[in-house]
């Protein structure tokens, strides 16, 4: 049987080598076939570039800090609790909130791909998707935390949550000392993305 090597090459190798041109080629092809509406692509990009991001998660955490009833609902059924605040959808269908305590620090990874709670934190940062984080977070979380400038107090255990199914995790960080006077909005301003992944702590206001 004649053997044509070109036919064995994976289809993706037929696209242009330069990534930006590769996307353009695919988008153009799918648009010409009627399969993709470029305006829909713009809408998807606008959603994740500007509308959905870590401010959502920060609002959830701040609410949990000031409202004990909400905190209890968040810890028992996070999907329903965050839906109360309007946060639902793709890559957040099954949410679990994990609470940091003096006894346990929580940290989230996806070793097999890049699973991440999009409705609450948006699109994952590059480091979360990096081989280094995926490979090392499970084996040496404390060494990875040190690279983020985080050292945990002696006696605090680490739990790493590997997101191997469709459950998505939000870390509920500890509320820092000296924030009693702050309202929910001011508290939300203290809460940054990495603290909700578990690679940072929430710092008190300067």
């Amino acid at each position: 049987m004649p053997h044509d090597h070109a036919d064995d090459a994976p289809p993706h190798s037929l696209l242009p080598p330069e990534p930006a041109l590769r996307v353009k080629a695919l988008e153009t092809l799918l648009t010409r076939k009627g399969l993709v509406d470029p305006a829909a692509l713009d809408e998807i990009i606008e959603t994740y570039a500007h509308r959905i991001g870590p401010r959502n998660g920060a609002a959830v955490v701040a609410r949990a800090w000031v409202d004990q009833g909400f905190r209890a609902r968040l810890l028992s059924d996070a999907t329903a609790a965050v839906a109360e605040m309007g946060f639902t959808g793709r890559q957040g269908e099954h949410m679990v909130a994990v609470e940091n305590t003096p006894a346990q620090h929580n940290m989230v990874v996806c070793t097999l791909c890049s699973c991440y709670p999009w409705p609450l934190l948006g699109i994952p940062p590059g480091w979360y998707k990096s081989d280094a984080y995926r490979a090392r977070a499970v084996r040496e979380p404390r060494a990875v935390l040190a690279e983020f400038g985080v050292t945990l107090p002696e006696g605090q255990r680490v739990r790493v949550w590997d997101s191997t199914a469709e459950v998505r995790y939000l870390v509920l960080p500890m509320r820092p000392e000296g924030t009693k006077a702050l309202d929910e909005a001011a508290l939300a301003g203290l809460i940054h993305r990495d603290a909700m992944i578990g690679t940072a702590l929430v710092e008190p206001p300067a």
Partner: protein
Amino acid sequence: MSRVHDMGGRFGDGAVMPGSENDPVFAQDWHARALAVTLAAGALGQWNLDVSRHARECLSPADYMAFSYYEKWLAALADLLVARGVVTRAELAGAAPDVSPLAERAMRAEAVAGALARGGPASRDGRAPRFAKGDSVRTRRPARNVRVAGGHTRLPGYVAGLVGTIERLHGCHVFPDANAHDQGEQPEPLYTVVFDAAEAWGAAEAPGDTVSCDLWESYLEPVA
């Protein structure tokens, strides 16, 4: 046994580069386009999430390691589009395309917000769980898809053969090992299983550290 994506615990990757929280969501414009094209193509309904994950995992190790994140998405998308007959190799290579019979399914701009806000839950009705919170279980070893050689599985290699404890029950979820291979959803009970880090790695960074995975029932067997 495993594929290149199953990298939990691997040595040699160097430091994590945290970057800044002010970094743009998409480092390059084409990253945003790659994400959007992938989501829009997925909405055509010609494959499911497990199929698309498996397509990325099936990139050759050389391609997987050479490609940046969104390059993996694009390559897997191109491979899937051809495998499912949505586009032809000739079209990918630049031949004039025909309008697709699937065109009426294309996601329109006004449908995007609703589709993203709805998502696609993986929970299903199904059988009662075999295990209860606190039960000891042992994971399958080696980590593999028992239905399809080299097939998709969500049991990471680093926990294969370990004894862990059932910590949380999630009800039944679509079973990726079947769903990735067009064998239907075959939902199974899903559990959070927690492992002692010392058990997984030989030595933990600190006593009491743990790692958990979300695992389907057929990955697990009881430990007396």
